[in-house]
């Protein structure tokens, strides 16, 4: 399990040494600012509305940031030939995936606390944003970001290049959204199952100051499922070649 630590540190080192850190962190801050300005600077917004709308903006930016961050996580290793190093080193596929996932959720946490955090602080200071909304919204952003990163890693493990990997993860997230969005067209049983897969509806609860157990389980089980699929995808590469 020591190897998880080394892979994690290597990923962090490369991230902060290259253009990726300003791109992801700066880009997220910029998009956040843009969305928050557009959404909030009108006279009708109450403090509560402003906070909710702010966190709904964060929902979009964390998805974009995590998809960009994760799209090369595994496929880059394949295209640059470094997968051969990982596959032929005395480490397991689980360690590879976990090292990279821990890196992803660390960046997600940095965005949630230090990038997104700036806005709730401002909101809290000047607009008196309710703290419970800020706290639950931040937990929601972190869970959604981690879930998106695990989807992105799976896309990256089966894609041939970064663009295809990105498309795969976009399709998965969109499918989960669309299935939920059109769930009302189905019978009650199917409707409830499809609606449960609606990732955004799960997030909305967090942005409204609720910490629903069902949604926490949804995100955690989603993360587990996609990490499991990523490991299986890596294992299958050894057979397929």
């Amino acid at each position: 399990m020591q190897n998880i630590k080394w892979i994690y540190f290597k990923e962090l080192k490369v991230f902060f040494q290259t253009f990726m850190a300003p791109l992801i962190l700066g880009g997220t801050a910029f998009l956040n600012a843009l969305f928050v300005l557009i959404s909030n600077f009108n006279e009708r917004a109450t403090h509560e509305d402003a906070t909710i709308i702010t966190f709904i903006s964060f929902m979009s930016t964390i998805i974009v940031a995590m998809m960009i961050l994760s799209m090369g996580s595994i496929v880059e290793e394949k295209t640059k030939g470094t997968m051969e190093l990982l596959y032929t080193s005395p480490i397991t596929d689980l360690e590879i995936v976990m090292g990279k996932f821990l890196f992803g959720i660390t960046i997600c946490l940095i965005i949630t606390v230090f990038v997104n955090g700036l806005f709730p602080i401002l909101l809290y200071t000047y607009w008196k944003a309710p703290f419970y909304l800020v706290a639950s919204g931040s937990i929601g952003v972190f869970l959604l970001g981690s879930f998106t990163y695990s989807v992105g890693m799976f896309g990256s493990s089966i894609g041939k290049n970064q663009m295809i990997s990105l498309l795969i993860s976009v399709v998965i997230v969109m499918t989960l959204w669309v299935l939920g969005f059109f769930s009302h067209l189905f019978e009650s049983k199917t409707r409830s199952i499809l609606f449960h897969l609606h990732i955004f509806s799960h997030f909305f609860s967090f942005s409204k100051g609720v910490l629903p157990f069902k949604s926490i389980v949804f995100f955690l089980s989603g993360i587990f499922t996609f990490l499991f699929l990523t490991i299986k995808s890596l294992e299958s590469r050894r057979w397929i070649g």
Partner: protein
Amino acid sequence: MIEVKNLTKYYDQIPAIRNLSFKLQKGEIVGLLGLNGSGKTTTLRILTGFLIPSEGDILIGNTSHFSDPIESKRMIGYLPETPPLYEDLRIEDYLIYVAHLKGISESEINGEVTRVLEKTNLLEKRKTLIGHISLGYRKRTGIAQALLGNPPIVVMDEPISGLDPKQILDMRNLIKGLKGEHTVFISSHILSELQKTCDRFLFLHQGELKFDLTREALDAELSKFSLLEINLEGKSKEAISSYLKSLDAKLEIKSAEEDSMGFTFTLKSSSEKEFRNKLIDTLKKEGLMLNTLKRQEVTLEQMFLTNM
């Protein structure tokens, strides 16, 4: 030390290698030769644990490579054809990272990294970003990572491809320096290059092992169909041709071309040594001047086309 038993690998339904069996002894340098697509890389990838074979087994010592892959991988250092490098890391940081992955203890890492940097002449470049170094240095960095932890087995896939003559010379010396201490298994499609470094040669053709030859056996095999190249001046082409034929009744003249120095003949002699001696003894008497006499380099293509 390593025993490969009936190794077979299919990609979809197509076999890349079939029933491959051979042994590698401790401390020897063995070359794996074959044309492109003959299954060299697949063999090395299975040996290093990158791929799992469809059938067969590999024994390292007495243990199956696939029953305890983590432990087996500790015994193998691998340089793929494209060195597996992270462009955004410095050479030293990269080697420290690989050393960690190989499970080298924290107290030994600095000493081990310095050792491989010295062995590959990279000490001066240790702080350079990998993205900024030439292919020669990349290959060296690749070898340095393969040597980390002093593994008893070192596997290299086309280590000289893409290198300039100076770098080839350096690489050759580096590989020779591994002899005795490590079992080295190198793949290449350039026969002449491996002839200079290896003790034994395995020839793959269409995924099957065609020959397993020692250096002496390979030399004998090559002399069977190697050609002599000779450049003579002083007489006409026809006159020189009939003179050459008079030295060896079974002589075959494959080509004769005029150039700035005289005439270059490509010959196949039934007894090369005898022919050469007669030639040297009688040249002066015939009024001919010898400009060049050499054995043409046999390429892998020629060898395969003649033997397959």
